[in-house]
């Protein structure tokens, strides 16, 4: 029995958080301890792999025996010894821990292009990348293709920038190629400042070489010899793995002078950003690399003409670059056919919120929101009703249930008042208050506004004040209209994308959930029972059996009632913390 055994433990962002490292440690120890029976140890290899894309079930462990994959979910260090004993030693997978049907459904509608290596290969080993065809595309681009040919392929692939705005990548490269200059720059935007986003991080951590390869191809296409990867300093693992990958490339002759003996030179450096959202904006990012304050500057020129240090520059997102090697290898037709007519290929999304299966997914463009949320995401947790999906992070908007059948691409999302953005997707259910959601995002943008231009600096603050007074019941008649007016004005007057899109969450929630705003203003009620100042807690007599759990838990001593008698909440001292609601086993507490 000389089975080839591999154990892969998910070390992606949520994998680490849920204890992936402990699980790895446990496997190492177990295998070591049985390693005394020499045969098995030799056959095992341990991979730290990128995100397996099923965050809800972490830690995920893949055990491959004789090429046969078994996925375990919710693995804890304590479970490792049994897996090693029964599965690896005895050849009987532990059936009760194996990932269920959901895991397979989760993958069915997905197409992995950018994520194809994430979770499959060791990101810290260039040989693993080479073994799956890595740097073949770069070799082709450098040896067989002219810059014009590369640009042509990227153009006809219909690849559009994955950083948010969706600018056609081929066109961007073409503009840059046509400008004559000795010095040009290629920059990869790995700032990823949206709250809750981890798409780019997963790629940088899980498949750093694909990003580097994409950049090398871009450099060749436009004639650049210096590149930067701008990564926020809050992503130390991404920085570490990118650096390892860059070092390996220098050693392997894939970066530096005379790459692959073709005479082409390209140097690549990591620049660690301070982690401000606005630094992801193209001009602010370039100022930041130049050592200035990360503040957007008006664009008199396209970056393609005058970017970093006033030299022609191509700035693309991490995911954009990671697509490039695949497009070069498999062809523009293949890629464009994956998506829609206007947007080729696939897009990675970070599904979060009230879905059953949250996680990182990659889907072909043109898929419907319904397919994403119900088929891949498994629908809403706890059988609650779906309310809306927020796409595009703080720059995007909320899309209501009745629009679930729209196809996901740049134009159709914009048409309904949201944006594709960089791929954040937050699913909201009936327990989410739309005013509160809008406030959450606006609080974020207001705090992240660089403060340079007046509409964004002051205007978003004013909108926030109005939202605040709506959520505490102090709003005035006309506040919705004022919000709309302010939002529209900010959208035309701001200097950069941050301010230009900041009102979107507010405007889109007003557009689709105006009645919810009105309920807050006119009836002083929060229909989703989220806004504390607008809700009251009371006890339903018919359900209360006087167990006293709520009374004991209440931090404000607001609950009165004798044991075995019906309890009551005194609204005066009640601080609306909701503790009673959570502790009552009999659903006797009402929140409204």
């Amino acid at each position, binding site marked *: 029995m000389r089975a080839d055994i591999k154990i892969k433990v998910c070390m992606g962002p949520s994998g680490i958080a849920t204890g992936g490292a402990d699980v790895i440690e446990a496997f190492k120890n177990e295998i070591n301890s049985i390693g005394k029976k020499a045969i098995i140890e030799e056959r095992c290899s341990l991979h730290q792999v990128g995100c397996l894309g099923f965050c809800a079930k972490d830690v995920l462990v893949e055990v491959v025996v004789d090429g046969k994959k078994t996925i375990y979910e919710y693995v804890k260090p304590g479970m490792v010894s049994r897996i090693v004993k029964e599965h690896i030693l005895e050849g009987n997978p532990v059936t009760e821990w194996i990932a269920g049907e959901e895991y397979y459904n989760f993958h069915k509608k997905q197409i992995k292009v950018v994520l194809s290596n994430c979770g499959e290969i060791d990101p810290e080993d260039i040989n693993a990348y080479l073994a799956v065809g890595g740097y073949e595309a770069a070799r082709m681009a450098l040896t067989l293709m002219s810059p014009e040919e590369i640009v042509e392929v990227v153009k006809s692939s219909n690849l559009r920038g994955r950083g948010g705005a969706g600018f056609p990548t081929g066109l961007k490269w073409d503009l840059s190629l046509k400008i004559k200059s000795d010095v040009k720059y290629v920059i990869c935007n790995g700032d990823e400042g949206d709250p809750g986003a981890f798409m780019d991080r997963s790629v940088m951590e899980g498949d750093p070489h694909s990003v580097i390869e994409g950049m090398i191809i871009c450099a060749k296409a436009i004639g650049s010899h210096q590149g930067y990867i701008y990564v926020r300093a809050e992503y130390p693992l991404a920085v570490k793995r990118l650096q390892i990958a860059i070092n390996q490339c220098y050693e392997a002759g894939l970066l530096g002078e005379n790459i692959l003996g073709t005479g082409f030179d390209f140097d690549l450096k990591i620049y660690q950003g301070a982690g401000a959202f606005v630094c992801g904006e193209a001009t602010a990012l370039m100022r930041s690399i130049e050592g200035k304050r990360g503040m957007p500057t008006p664009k*008199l020129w396209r970056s393609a003409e005058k970017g970093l240090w006033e030299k022609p520059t191509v700035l693309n997102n991490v995911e954009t670059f990671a697509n490039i090697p695949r497009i070069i290898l498999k062809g523009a037709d293949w890629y464009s056919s994956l998506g829609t007519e206007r947007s080729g290929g696939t897009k990675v999304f970070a599904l979060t919120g009230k879905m059953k299966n949250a996680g990182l997914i990659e889907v072909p463009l043109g898929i419907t929101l319904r397919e994403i949320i119900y088929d891949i995401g498994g629908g809403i947790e706890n059988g609650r009703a779906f309310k809306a999906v927020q796409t595009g992070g703080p720059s995007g908007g909320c899309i209501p249930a009745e629009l679930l059948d729209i196809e996901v691409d740049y134009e159709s999302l914009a048409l309904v008042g949201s944006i594709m953005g960089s791929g954040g997707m937050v699913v909201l259910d009936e327990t989410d208050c739309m005013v509160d959601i809008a406030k959450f995002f606006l609080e974020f943008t207001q705090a992240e506004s660089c*403060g340079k231009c007046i509409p964004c*600096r002051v205007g978003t603050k004013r909108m926030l004040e109005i939202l605040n007074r709506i959520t505490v019941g102090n709003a005035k008649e006309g506040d919705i209209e004022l919000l709309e007016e302010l939002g529209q004005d900010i959208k*035309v007057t701001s200097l950069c994308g941050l301010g230009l899109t900041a009102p979107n969450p507010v405007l889109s929630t007003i557009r689709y959930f105006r009645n919810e705003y009105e309920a807050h203003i006119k009836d002083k009620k929060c229909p989703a029972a989220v806004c504390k100042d607008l809700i009251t807690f009371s006890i339903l007599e018919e359900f209360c059996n006087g167990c006293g759990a709520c009374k004991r838990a209440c931090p404000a001593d607001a609950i009165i009632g004798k044991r075995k008698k019906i309890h009551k909440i005194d609204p005066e001292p009640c601080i609306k913390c909701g503790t009673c609601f959570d502790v009552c086993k009999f659903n006797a507490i009402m929140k409204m």
Partner: protein
Amino acid sequence: MADIVGLTIDDKEVQAPEGMNLIDAAELAGVHIPNLCYLKGMKGIGACRLCLIEIEGLKAPMIACNTKVKEGMVINTKTEKVLEIRKFVIDLILSMHPLDCMTCTKAGVCRLQQYAYDFGIKESSFTRKRFGYPADEANPFIKRDPEYCIICGKCVHICKAQGTSVLDFMGRGVEAKVITANDRPLQESGCTFCGSCVDVCPVNALLEADRWRKGREWEYEKVNSVCLLCGNGCEITVSTKEGSIQKINAGAAEGSAERYICAYGRFGFDCIEAETRLTHPMKRINGELKETTWEDALRTVADKLKRSGKDVGFISVAGIVNEDALVLKKFVKDVVKTENVNTTMSLYADSDSLRKSHTADIDDADLVFLVGLSPSQRERILPALDAAIRKKVNRGLKLVVINSSEAKIAEASTISLKGDEVSNLKAIVRVLIDKGFKADKEIESSVKDAEVSEDIEKAASLFAEAKEPLIFSSPSLFWASANISLLKGKIISVALESNARGVALMGLTTEGKTYKEMVGTAESKEQSAQSGVKVLYAVGEVPLNKRPDGIDFLIVQNSHLTELAQQADVILPSATFLESAGTIIDYMGRLKYLPQIIEPQGASKSHRDIFIHLSKIIGSPLKRPAEAEVKKATRVKTKLSFSPFVKKEGFDISPSELIDSINASVINGSRLLWLKEIERAMAV
């Protein structure tokens, strides 16, 4: 010349030079596009969003400050959409503003007030918010009150552009504000108190410290003049109220790189009413200086001069106006009949280099060679030149610094050539000749063994490519540097006093004893001792604290009681440059007018009036010089020819010491003294 393009702004046809932005182009058509963050001459930064206008064919409004004119463009600056945007922006700003126009010093010239008025916005339609930030009032020059700040960023940008970089932005969102490093008071942040930020601030956030309830702009009378305190001769705008000066601002045209004045020029005017100000003539009686009448003082002096004739020596500063210089020259040569007259100019320059310098404008230059000069705002050595060059570098000027000693401004240079200046100059000429520039045999042969480095090559290439290269040279290196300007471009010998060039052109140079001989600091002791000058007549604040040995009679004619004046036999009180009219030729060769702005203090008189009086008493009356006479004296041919590559010796006075010395009364008699003390404390 830039090409002209035609466009339409609010139905008006406009011809504007290519590359001009829409705010400036609209100005040509008499259309004002509201703006709060735009600094003329600098790249629009797009912060205030007030200048958004509509361009036909484009959907989104564009900012006028950062959009360039294009042939056939059709622009509308007053559409409904644009007006709504402006109103919205003003409304937002007002929601963060104190709105206390009734007591605000800036009322009347506040841009925000003006725009609020234009839009009829009395109160913001949003809830008002104040931060309660404290004001920085810890210095006597500039009050910084962040409560009023609208974060237009002008102060930050001007401060950075001129190279002082004291101010910067901090914080995000509404919390964003303008601060100094670590939010320290200005005097602890490397601030030079030039007040450029005060000049650009559109609101009341940056203001002269002493302005509270001292009158508002509409109460002032404004007069343009020139600062005579140093070699830059900056243009200033003086505001007066009821015959006294309230403030001084930079006076050069908006958008010009020369729009700058230093703390001396801006705040030194306090000295006009200093305790040391001389308001009466004085005379030594029984060893003690006593006030006396003009009549008596002048008679005493006239008597002395008449009797002493050739034994009289005149020394003067070179910061006197042309008219004073002309009269002084005639007074010395025709009335007193001596050859002994010389100015402080001789301490740092040969008059020929000044006479032969070109006339230029730094705003036109695209390349500057700075030879042997170390301008510095911090040390106040030609601070305005330092600021202008740095601003121009920001706008694309190339700078080559050629200096054997450390020059701070080299940090702004494209190329900095250290080491012996003369060798470097030679090497540059050599490369230029190799590049095909035509030169005399003499030049060719004198540079043929010059050593050429990579940097020299680069500097020469920059020179060869430049359209309007301009050389600023220290006088000692003028003749060596001038050899480059024989190939192309212009050259200026940069003096340390405001009218050194004028004084040279008026011919106020000695044919007798030198300045150093007369004051006893000549290289050889014998020379000084044998100068034979017995009566010394000192005009202006000469850098001399001790009455020279061998002087029997000392006449000091100055506005303030200096240490030297205290040792005088007669003191004649003179008017300051703000109290008398005249002209100067600034270092760039431009004739500049100084009107009389206020009445002279007490009984003080202009230098020329004093000489004319004296001439009458002596019996050969002089007339006030006619305008034509000054003009005629300024007309010189600047035909240069080859001169050997050598550095002229003898001009080794420390520039900063000289400038502080000739301005000692200005500094000690004004709030500048506070600054000097702070600077001294910081230095230890």
